[in-house]
């Protein structure tokens, strides 16, 4: 686009920067600070209006994470489910993503639509269908059931990222390796896999964090026995009864992997993997 939009020269650029940073601090940074403050509120003193900052701070709410059994249990449950979902998605997505990325397929459009569907379909619709199906199969309210439903919504992201990764390997490199005498197995081991490793790692991380954060399907299928961190957060935010301080603690726990994802995404993930993940319709 035009390089000198509305405001010409250096002063205009500084104005623009000022505008952007003001908006960013109001909508992003202040909420984050307030969120952290809520997690540090001293339960004895509380934090009532019109105080702008809490009268006293403590780590009591963080200690509650260990003391309140349901928080610890939800934490354990989330970190039990996420690796299983990631492994399952990787196993299912690798061959399919490879086929989508590197082979000439006849029904490509239909296949891509099928893979796109769970990303676009509202989670509540999938949850309704899977919920009733799992009741019949005896999978409702079980960890296995939650693993299976989370896989439905995360597998498409994994497939798309794997496909984009494989597609991104230049054909010339494959041809060069074959030309230099690489038979299929060494070709995969020495050329293909090293080249796709960053993409696969990113896909795995994306899936792992996606599993930690998934809510709707886990909520409908897992309730009330399988309680992950987002389900608990929903409860603390007023779904059951409002406990803002605990909600703040759970929020911070859920934000850490998110921030990690941001950094990894910026550093190792190329923009196209992200675009593939988030679905160019």
């Amino acid at each position, binding site marked *: 686009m035009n390089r000198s939009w509305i405001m010409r020269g250096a002063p205009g650029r500084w104005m623009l920067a000022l505008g952007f940073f003001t908006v960013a601090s109001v909508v992003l940074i202040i909420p984050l600070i307030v969120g952290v403050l809520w997690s540090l509120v001293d339960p004895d003193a509380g934090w009532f209006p019109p105080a702008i900052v809490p009268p006293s701070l403590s780590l009591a709410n963080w200690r509650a994470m260990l003391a309140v059994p349901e928080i610890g249990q939800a934490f354990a449950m989330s970190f039990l489910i996420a690796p299983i979902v990631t492994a399952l998605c990787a196993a299912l997505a690798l061959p399919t993503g490879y086929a989508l990325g590197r082979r000439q397929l006849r029904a490509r459009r239909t296949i891509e639509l099928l893979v796109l569907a769970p990303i676009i*379909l509202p989670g509540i*619709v999938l949850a309704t269908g899977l919920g*009733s199906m799992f009741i019949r199969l005896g999978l409702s309210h079980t960890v296995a059931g939650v693993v299976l439903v989370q896989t439905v919504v995360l597998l498409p992201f994994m497939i798309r990222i794997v496909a984009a990764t494989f597609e991104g390997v230049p054909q010339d490199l494959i041809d060069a390796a074959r030309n230099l005498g690489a038979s299929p197995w060494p070709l995969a081991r020495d050329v293909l896999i090293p080249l796709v490793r960053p993409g696969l790692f990113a896909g795995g991380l994306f899936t792992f964090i996606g599993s930690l954060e998934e809510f709707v399907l886990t909520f409908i299928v897992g309730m009330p026995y399988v309680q992950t961190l987002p389900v608990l957060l929903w409860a603390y935010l007023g779904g059951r009864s409002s406990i803002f301080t605990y909600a703040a603690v759970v929020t911070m726990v859920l934000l850490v992997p998110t921030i990690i*994802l*941001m950094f990894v995404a910026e550093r190792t993930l190329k923009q196209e993997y992200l675009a593939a993940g988030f679905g160019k319709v």
Partner: protein
Amino acid sequence: MAQAAAAIPQVTRAPARRRHESLVDVLLLAPGLGYLLVFMCVPLVQVVLRSFGLLAIGEPSQFTFGLYREVLANKIDRDSIVFSLYFALGTTVISLILSLMTSALLQVRFPGRFIISVLYKIPLVVPSLVAAFLVLTIIDQGGIIARALQPYGLGWPELVHDRYGLGIILVLVWHNVPIMTVILSAVMSGIPHDITNAARNLGASPWQVFRNVTVPLSLPGISAASLLVFIGVFGAFSIPSLLGAAYPTAIAVVMSREVLDRANWGLASALGTIVTALSAVLLYVYYRLIRRQEAALR
């Protein structure tokens, strides 16, 4: 002829090789697509069938439009559809305006642009429940803004649990502006500088360039992003369930109540089918539009 004779072994060999290749394709696709067929297509078909009274749970199965008649007759269900359409449309329009501005401004070089381009993506990866909490701490009656205004005797309007769903729209906008901005920025930075420079050279003001060149050329991205956001928001559950008023409620909230509180899978399925059908129609319209645009550009 010589080449006809040479072609004969080819004719007999090619189909066998092609069959072998297809088999490899099927084997590679089987894990991923098979899983989606079993755990997405089957339940989806069940939802649709159940919405017509078939495959009923705990009731006799028979084909009927009764559930849809029930949805239309019930004011709560009817209003939930209207309410969902309302906040989905509102969120999409507001997000589109904000992200068009943001992505156009992000094309300009300014100090700290890199930091901003990282910062604005944060909401993209923040779970919607966390987003709800963060925005809640700011805009709620006990939130920071209300607290800041209190000493001056200024009141702060009720934005959460209000009947206009303003809190819902606010959080959804917070969450969706970055998604749209990522898509629109990518599309806009893909427009060759030569084209915008040519427009400038021909006498277009920056605003005219934006209006007549940038926006039309970004139209595929704009429609894709709008559609993505609209469909996503229309079926949203967590934010409307936390920030919505007791009445009217979002369609997803009504569905979850039917399922969890009343085990009324039939009615939930009818609502689910309506949501799915609307999404499918929008997607179809979108594909038609894109096809026509591509044809026009060719």
